[in-house]
Every structure is written in C-alpha cells, then in structure tokens.
C-alpha cells in the first residue's frame, strides 16, 4: 500500500478517535449546567471528565500535527481558508480548558458562574462547528487555483448545519452516557434521561444526513463504485440503533461503547466517501487537494509511519489504563473532600 493511503487512513483514525473521546467531554460540558443544579452535582460532572479531557484533546493536536506532517499543502490551505471558523473553535477550546481547570479553584460564586458559562459555551461551539466544518469539507470548499471564495456565513449552509447538529446531538448523547457512568446515582439518572431524550434528534439528523448527502456531496460515488464499503455506514446505523436500545435497557456501559463506535464509523463513512480527496473543490474537482497532490515526500511519510506505528499503540495502551483506573463511580464523600 502506498504511504499516502496509509496516512489517509491514519488521518481518518486520528479524527475519529478524537471525536469519540473529546466528544463526550463536549457533551458533558453542554449538559453540565442543565443537569447539575447544586455545587456537589457540578463538582461531580467536572470530576467525571477531569482526569481525561486533556489527554483526549491531544488527539486533536495530533490530528492537526499529522495533517501538517503528512499533507502539508492540505494543512496550509485548510487552516487558512477556514481562518475565522477555526479561530472561533480555538477560542472556545481555550475557554473550555481554562474553565474546567479553574472552576474548582474559583474563590467566589461570581467567578464560579463565569466558569460555568465558559464550560457550556466552550463545549457547545466546538461540538457544533467541528460538524459544520466537516459537513463543508464533505461538500467541498469553494476554491480554485487563485484562492478561496467562501466566508464564515457561506459555511453555515443547510447541509453544513445539518452535520453540525448531527455532531452536536451525538456528542450530547455520548456525554450524557459518560456522565451517567461516573457520577452518583440521582445525577446519573438525570444524565441518562438526557441521553435518552437527545437520541431522537440524533437519529433524525443521521437519517437526514444519509439522504441529503446524496444531493449535496459526492461521498456516495466511492460507495457505488465499491459497494463493499457500504458495510461501514451500515455499521454506523447499527451502532446508533444499538445505542438507543441499550439506553432503554439501562445498560449504560454498552450504550456508551455503541455511541463511541457510532461516532467512529460515522467519521470513517465520511472519510471513505472523500477518498482520495482531503478537501474537494466545490468549483472543479481538478483543484481538489488530494492525498496524492498534497502529501509529503515518501521519505517523510515513511519516517512518520514508523513513529506512529511504534507510539500510537503505546499511547492507546496507557490511555486505556487511565480509563480503567478512572472508570469508577465518584462518591459524594470524595467530592466533599475534593481539594485540587
């Protein structure tokens, strides 16, 4: 297999893992002010994501770094074309990180309220805008050899917003499930009931996505050419339905895993449809940035492949250990004694 293809798969994998992990942090942050009404509940939700959110976010840094290293031309134009939306995501991510870390240390009620708002806004904006960004990448951006013609508002088109909402609802369900696994019981019930409620709009968005993708994008071309790949979106549908079933059966752990697998297969469905493009041009496919015309040299790709093959399994190993260590129910006692 060519290195470009290997790196295309890795590129998709990094994004998929990022959304499957940080996605529940976003969901937890969005649900946070709505399910946590007193100080103990608030501490519990923050504690639920506290040990892992930062390690989860590094998948984004790695996805960005890998795009830079493996597909520098794509990295350069994707980031400069999407300047303003990425800036908004960046500010939101900064706000989320600071809010999660500083909320437990805020000395006054007013400051706590400020960080509460920061957690909500800083989680909501990336959840929505990452989806909008990917929706627009699926459609193709409006650029040719002389530059980019889109604006922030042209990105907020119906299809982009639909993918945005699909991401948003998926992360809310995902986050609700994660929180329900970690916090004390009465709060866990609340989180689970939100996951249950938001599963419906998630399902509706997913169905609309399956239909409208045929009209707005060329993603189906690859699937029609090689129907074997239909198994990926099929799996996504199965995992989404299973998430709903497991929520109803009150099997939170299994529901969470299905929800994570749904996000991963969803991202891969899009990525398979994109191949070999990284950013298609909506004006003319001949301007598209593909894995072949925007990649690094074979030498660099080879070096990076070696690095990734050695280190990503190590990262997965110790992150899995972290999840095992912190996959327990937080107790009221622990929250009362909490002192960062």
């Amino acid at each position, binding site marked *: 297999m060519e290195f470009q293809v290997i790196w295309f798969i890795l590129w998709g994998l990094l994004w998929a893992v990022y959304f499957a992990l940080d996605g529940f942090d976003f969901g937890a942050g969005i649900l946070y002010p709505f399910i946590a009404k007193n100080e103990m509940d608030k501490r519990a939700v923050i504690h639920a994501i506290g040990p892992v959110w930062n390690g989860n976010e590094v998948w984004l840094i790695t996805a960005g*770094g890998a795009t830079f290293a493996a597909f520098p031309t794509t990295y350069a134009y994707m980031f*400069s074309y999407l300047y303003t939306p990425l800036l908004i995501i960046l500010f939101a991510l900064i706000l989320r990180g600071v809010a999660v870390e500083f909320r437990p240390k805020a000395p006054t009620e007013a400051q706590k309220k400020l960080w509460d708002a920061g957690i909500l806004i800083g989680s909501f904006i990336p959840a929505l805008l990452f989806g909008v960004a990917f929706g627009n990448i699926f459609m193709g951006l409006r*650029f040719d050899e002389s530059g980019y013609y889109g604006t922030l508002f042209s990105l907020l088109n119906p299809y982009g917003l639909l993918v945005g909402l699909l991401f948003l609802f998926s992360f809310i369900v995902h986050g609700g499930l994660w929180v329900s696994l970690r916090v004390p019981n009465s709060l866990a019930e609340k989180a689970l009931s939100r996951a249950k409620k938001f599963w419906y709009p998630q399902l509706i968005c997913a169905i609309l996505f399956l239909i409208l993708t045929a009209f707005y994008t060329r993603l189906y071309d690859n699937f029609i050419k090689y129907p074997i790949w239909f198994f990926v979106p099929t799996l996504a549908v199965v995992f989404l339905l299973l998430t709903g079933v497991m929520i109803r059966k009150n099997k939170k752990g299994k529901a969470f895993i299905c929800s994570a697998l749904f996000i991963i297969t969803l991202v891969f469905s899009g990525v398979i449809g994109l191949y070999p493009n990284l950013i298609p041009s909506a004006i003319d496919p001949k301007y598209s940035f593909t894995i072949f015309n925007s990649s690094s040299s074979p030498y660099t790709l080879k*070096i990076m492949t070696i690095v990734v093959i050695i280190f990503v399994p190590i990262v997965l190993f110790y992150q899995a250990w972290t999840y095992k260590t912190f996959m327990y129910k937080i107790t009221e006692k622990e929250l009362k004694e909490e002192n960062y």
Partner: protein
Amino acid sequence: MDTLLLSRLQFAITAAFHFIFVPLTLGLSILIAYMETKYLRTGDKDYLRMAKFWGRLFIINFALGVVTGITMEFQFGMNWAEYSRYVGDIFGSPLAIEATVAFFLESTFLGVWIFGWNRISPKMHALSIWLVALATNLSALWILIANGWMQNPVGYVINNGRAEMVDFWAVVTNPYGLLKFGHTVLSGWVVAGFFVLGVSAYHILRKNETEFFKKSFKIGVIFALVSSILVAGIGDFHAKEVAATQPTKLAAMESLWETTKDAPMYLLLIPDQKNERNSVEAIGIPSMLSILAGQKEVRGLKDFPPSERPPVTLTFISFRLMVGLGFLFILLSLWALVKSKRIENSTTLLRILLWSIPLPYIAAQLGWIVAEVGRQPWIVYGLLKTSDAISKSVEPSQVLASLIGFTLFYGALGVIDIYLLAKYARKGPQPKEV
C-alpha cells in the same frame, strides 16, 4: 496595516504569552517529582504537603500553557500557509512527533497525578509526575528541533517548489536545535528555581510554616544555582553556533557593523541602525567578541545588504539584558545558597528573592526575542523570507479581528491566572494533619 505585519504581531503576542507558562512547567515538574519521591523515601509528610502545594501552583500554570499551545499549532496553517506548504515536509514531522511521543504522555499522566491520589499506589503516583516531567522536557526537545531547523536548515533538498526532508537524522541531531533545547530548557529550570525561592521567601518573611518553606528553599536554591550556571555555559556554546551559522544574527546581537579581526567587545554601546554605526562605543575589552564568537574574524552587518539585516537595536538590547540577567541569577542563587542555613535571618536577601520572581521570565522572553527577531528577515534562515511565508487567502481585517481577540482574551486569562497563582501561593500549604 497589512496581513504580514498583523500576522507577525499576532504570532509574537501569542508565542510570548504561551512562553510565560511553559518555562515554569519545565522545571517545577521535576521539583515536584523530587519532593514526592523524597516523601516516599523518608515518610516525612512535609514532602507530601510540599508536592501538593507546589503541585497546585503547577496545575494553575499548566492549564494556560496547554490551551495557548494549541494556538501555536493552528497558527502555522492559519496565518503562515505559504510557510507551512513550503516546509511542512520537514517542519511538520517534529510537531507531530511531539504530540505523539511527548504531549500525550504529559497530559494523560498529569490527569492521573491530579485525580489519582487515592486511586493508585503511591509509587505509581510518583511515577506519573516523573512521566509528566520527562514528557514536558521531551516536548520541548521536539519543538526546539523544529525551531532549530528554522534557524539552521539541514537535511533537506529543494524539490517540487518546497523543502523536502532527505536526512531525518540530520534534522534531529541539528546542533543548533540541540543547543537551543539545552539553553531553553535550562532557562525554564531557572524560572522554576527562582519561583520556588521567591514564594518560599514570601512565607519565611512572614514566619509562616518556616520549616516547610526552608525545606522548599533548600531544594529550590540548589536547582536554581545549578541551572543558572548550566544555562550560561550552554549559552556560550550556543552563541558560537549562532556565529557559525547565522552571522547576521550574531552581528546584530553585538551591533558589529564592520567585519573585524580580533573584535573587541564594548561594555557600553548604543547602536544607530539608520547610519550603520554605533553612536557610543566605550570600555572595550580587546578580542573579547572574537573569543566569545569562537572566530578570529567576526563578520559585520555591512557585509550583508540592508534587506538581509535584522532589527539591530532590539536584538542587541535584548541580548545584553538577557546576558546581564543570567549573571545576576548566578550571583543571587550563590548568595542564597551561602545563607540558606539561616535564611530566615537574611531579610534583605529574602525580599530581593521575592521581587526576583519575574526576572527569569523576562530573561526567557528576551532570549526568544534574540532568537526570532535576530533571525529576520528570514523565517527559515537563508531559505525563505518571512514576507513570502504569509497566507495569501487571509484578509487583513480577519487578522486584525483575531489579533484584537487574542489580545483581549489572553489579557483577561493572564490576569486571572496570575491572580490565582498569587492567591494560592500566598495561602500556603494545607495545615499539618494532627
């Protein structure tokens, strides 16, 4: 103002702000790991309280270091698309390796350390902060290998209209990058050493937890002294490397206009870039500059066309101040070491140390000004000009808006962070369990 100038300003502001938080992380992580290990070895609960007290300050500081780091990665593509396209084949790799090899380790195990006090064995807990310390410094290695390549590009060929890597080993062992790594990391250790000394001094002056802070002081003083000496030593090697690879930067650092044999060094000097001369040159030490640069003949700025010279005054003043501060750190930490046994009696020294907390931060910033301003007009020395590196599709209004946004947002976050740091530093450790 145009996109270029605005983007440069934005990069300067966001990089300088990021580097307020990075240096303390580099050094303090090691000190906390040492304290926790000492607790495990001796069973002395003071060391446990110490790890927790300094650890809390570490976390407050770390939060901003992380979030402002994402900006750095995004900005290369957002504002410097032509740069990213031109050098991505080489420059992207160390960044991606940094994330994969170091940053994952650092972030994951910091989470383990903060939340793991009652969940994992004490040994595993101490190991996790050692991993944070290792990863933080390893992270600096890869970032400085990347920056080292911008300063002294090696291991590449120009192919397909861009720089392509042909020798990964040469990029990784670039002496410029490795020396810069040593110099930068040690400057961070100096910051941490003086941070511990200053905060301890504050409490010793108030006779609060004197024993606890004297113990901290002792750890801090040795760390500060050793780091101060080493950072100056490596700085000397680093300067010789600059002289060998970046003659325009060295000439600007010393404001040397004419190529000179056995060049002297003037203790008192005022550059005059407009007239290509120095308006004041006094108290010369014969041949000193040649000795420091490791060259018999040192090339002057007039050897290069004006369009290839960096801003002289800023580079020169930053370098002089940094070096001066560097010597001050050695003297101060030596003084503190001599007095450390009965430090509570040396109130003047304690006051000086308290007010010295910002100085190593300033020195680190000045060092970066020398490195980055002194490299101008190049973004990759001798290969790509900063003016050719900009994103063509980004409008000045977009950058103006983001520049204002960053300034306000970072300004507010900086104030909050320093407020929290000061609050918890003043509060002192948790009281002893009875």
